[in-house]
């Protein structure tokens, strides 16, 4: 576990010191530096290369009972001094807000000292040639599948990032984090007989470059997925069982994050208000916010305010256990802060694989992707475009597109009848395949 550079510590400390010197009663600074490299490959050659390093400092200012948040990348002392001075003047124009303070330092305490394994020491050894080679492998594998004659275009790519950050607050917080990510992906467009040009993709991401799965495998999967979309049509409007693929399920679960937040609750924009301790879903709705997943994309030892990270059960056997409350909205609500944002979601997994769930579903729609739509955080009403496949007799059958599902979140999660054994590993929402009964599909 490496530490962020001394330079970033100095930048953050300097920003806090300047804020206090210029008249802030308290301040917290986050200094960060991020390097990003991307290669995009299309149809036999490099399409675009991009490489950049950015750095900057953001600052929360508490001035005479007032609050503002500002950011800048000019890290030289004189420029930073002017910027912070101007920002403090701006802050003084605002209304006093007695709820706005730095976190209670007691909540900084108890930070775990474990190696979350977020940084690959081999990061700098990734060569331009390796990036190109993996991107090319994806295209070659895509073009080698059966039915590849219908392929119009293959785009693939490699992206890697290293970000280090330091947070310092004037009431005694200091902490850093360093992480690397490596993503590969391929998207394949195919020509349909009716003039449509459907596409589909396959992506993978890891913290350690050596753990990237086979690029060729993802190229092949992208091509097979795209080809499987040929001939997709809408089907009749009716209530049916929905088997929701793990790569798409995060969209539904992610819609719960907003209404679970302190801001939504305090602003009367949450259908979860007053629901703590009550059953929201079936007993299968059971998941934990787990910041300590090794190599996880949302893993952390402290949250965005510096609160020591903790595992928290969000839903247990369908019952709501936790809101996501930060310091500010905690004070407004009169509730103890938990954390202002989710880290990684870990589900209590089922026994069955996706294939088995499809087989057991009998007659259903297998949803592999969402398109557009929205979910109303105040009422729980949702309406989302979907595409996927019919399931007939427990077997994946013809592709469907241009369909929609609609209902209310408070009903939907009670209709959760099965959870797969396959958490999606390439996201902070590590959602397995989910099965819901009686979902309202709109089509013809």
């Amino acid at each position: 576990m490496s530490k962020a550079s001394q330079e970033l510590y100095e930048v953050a400390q300097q920003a806090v010191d300047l804020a206090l010197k210029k008249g802030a009663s308290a301040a917290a600074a986050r200094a960060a530096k991020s390097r990003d490299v991307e290669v995009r490959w299309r149809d036999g050659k490099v399409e675009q290369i991009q490489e950049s390093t950015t750095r900057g400092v953001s600052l929360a200012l508490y001035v005479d009972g007032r609050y503002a948040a500002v950011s800048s990348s000019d890290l030289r002392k004189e420029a930073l001094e002017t910027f912070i001075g101007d920002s403090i003047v701006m802050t003084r124009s605002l209304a006093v807000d007695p709820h706005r303070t730095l976190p209670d330092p007691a909540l900084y305490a108890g930070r775990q000292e474990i190696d979350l394994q977020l940084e690959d020491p081999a990061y700098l050894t990734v060569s331009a040639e390796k990036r190109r080679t993996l991107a090319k492998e994806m295209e070659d594998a895509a073009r080698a599948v059966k039915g590849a004659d219908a392929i119009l275009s293959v785009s693939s790519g490699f992206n890697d990032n290293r970000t280090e950050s330091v947070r310092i607050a004037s009431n005694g917080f200091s902490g850093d984090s360093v992480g690397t990510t490596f993503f590969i992906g391929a998207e394949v467009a195919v020509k349909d007989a009716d003039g449509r040009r459907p596409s589909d993709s396959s992506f993978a991401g890891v913290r350690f470059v050596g753990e990237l799965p086979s690029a060729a495998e993802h190229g092949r999967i992208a091509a097979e997925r795209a080809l499987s979309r040929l001939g997709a049509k809408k089907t009749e409007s009716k209530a049916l069982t929905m088997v929701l693929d793990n790569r798409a399920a995060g969209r539904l679960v992610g819609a719960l994050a907003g209404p679970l937040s302190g801001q939504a609750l305090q602003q009367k924009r949450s259908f979860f208000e007053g629901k703590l301790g009550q059953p929201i879903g079936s007993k299968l709705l059971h998941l934990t916010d787990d910041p300590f997943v090794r190599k996880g994309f949302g893993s952390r030892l402290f949250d965005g305010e510096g609160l020591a990270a903790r595992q928290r059960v969000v839903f247990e056997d369908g019952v709501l256990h936790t809101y996501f409350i930060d310091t500010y909205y905690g004070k407004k609500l009169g509730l103890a802060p938990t954390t202002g944002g989710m880290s990684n979601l870990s589900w209590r997994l089922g026994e069955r694989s996706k294939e088995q769930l499809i087989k057991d579903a009998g007659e259903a729609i297998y949803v592999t992707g969402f398109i557009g739509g929205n979910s109303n955080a105040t009422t729980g009403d949702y309406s989302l475009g979907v595409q996927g496949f019919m399931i007939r007799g427990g077997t994946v059958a013809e592709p469907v597109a241009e369909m929609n599902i609609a209902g209310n979140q408070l009903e939907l999660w009670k209709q959760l009848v099965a959870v797969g054994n396959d958490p999606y590993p390439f996201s902070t929402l590590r959602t397995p395949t989910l099965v819901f009964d009686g979902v309202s599909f709109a089509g013809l």
Partner: protein
Amino acid sequence: MNEQGISRRQVLHIGAATLASSALSDVLAGPAKAYAATAGAGGPLYFARFGVDETLIRGALAAALSKGGDYADLYFQHRVGSSFMLEDGSVNRAFKSVELGVGVRVVKGDQVGYGFTEDLTREALQQAALTAAAIADGPSGAPPERFHVSDPKASRYAVKLRWDDVRPEQKLPILNQLNERTFAADPRVKKVSISFNDEASVILIADSTGRIVEDFQPMTSCYLGCVAEQNGAREQGAYNVAGREDLSFYSEDRLTRMVKEAVARTTILFEAVPAPAGEMPVVMAAGSSGILLHEAIGHGMEADFNRKGTSIYSDKIGKPVAKPFVSIIDEGTQPGARGALNVDDEGNEVGKTMLVQDGVLTTYLHDNISAKHYGVKPTGNGRRESYQYAPMPRMRSTYMLPGPHKKDEIIASVKHGIYATNFTNGQVNIGAGDFTFYVKNGWLIEDGKLTRPVKDVNIIGNGPKVLEQIDMVSDDLAIDEGGWTCGKDGQGVPVSQGLPTVRVASITVGGRSGAKRG
């Protein structure tokens, strides 16, 4: 990757990477000083603002072309953004960001190398240029010997007062007034939230043909959201306005309309019934219904998808795609519009582009790369979110010209259907052509009359099929004043949209199958 969306952005640039540099403190201390230092006879206005000169630019372009690229450009940007927010009755938080940087692009055929830096020193600029240069692999090209300033011919957003010169005390009364009036408008209103956003952006583009283009681009938007309660039920709604305007944008008329619309759109939800499910006629109200065009055809006409053969509109130029009374335009010439531009982000002139003329597919939306590919003139659609990104073909303001029908006639023609009036977001799959838009407010049409309000329903269709299904177009074209932001490939750009009242004869409404059908 081919999923493009549009959404109402409530907050501008708060989370964006925010940057400042050597020129910054001077500029913040007084823009007048920055101009005074630079206003040479016919020379670039903004060299001093960015702390650059011709020698430095020539050196960077030489490095960019050092591996044999066909073309290179530098995109300097300085953008100061600020946001004031009101919650629980007071303006109790503010956000400020400064972005200053330069992007270097090298083009070789249809291949692109890109690098950027926030450090505007000679060394950092050279390094970014060399990074971008690596897309090519050939003998070095020569940078331009001389530069010429090519001023934008248009002036579509000449503001009297620049946002970086506006004091907080001038903005705060707007938020406080909106708050008081919204509570006063209806006792059912329980919460009001407002965000007031503005930015002042300066761009300077220098390219390997020796052209230098500059523009000053103001923007403001204001979002007014409210939560109302009635008999234990709660609903939220909002209204939002945006434009390349100054403080005078917030006229009495506009503030009155914001309050009226935000409250009306929220409280009517208490009367709403669930929308039905399935195919039926949908009447799109004049104004923000332009989201239909943005998703059903606009993205599919962006020429990058077409030159790659991955758009459902590839190979359809010159072919009939809609009824003869359907004409669709994308343009950037409306004064003060959110989607207005004097020049695009490649320095090209911005005019009007006919996507569909009298029912026939006419012109794709081009950037330099696609224009060269098709052997046509660029259409001024090369846009980017900031100096951190390479440009690509993007929409500006997309709308349909008025048609031969009347609004009342169109509604009266529908036996069972939906009248869609207010939207929050949409999305499209470019190749398959399937697209959606989310209806926040609408009405059931029964026997030619608007009967009950409906809410929160997604509508899904297929672009070319829906264009064919547009069988009535009214004479009441309206361009929406809302703050739309279009997302593509991770880049957000401000856009406008509009539509006359239009009937789509059949499209899938994503209501609940249990609900009464039409």
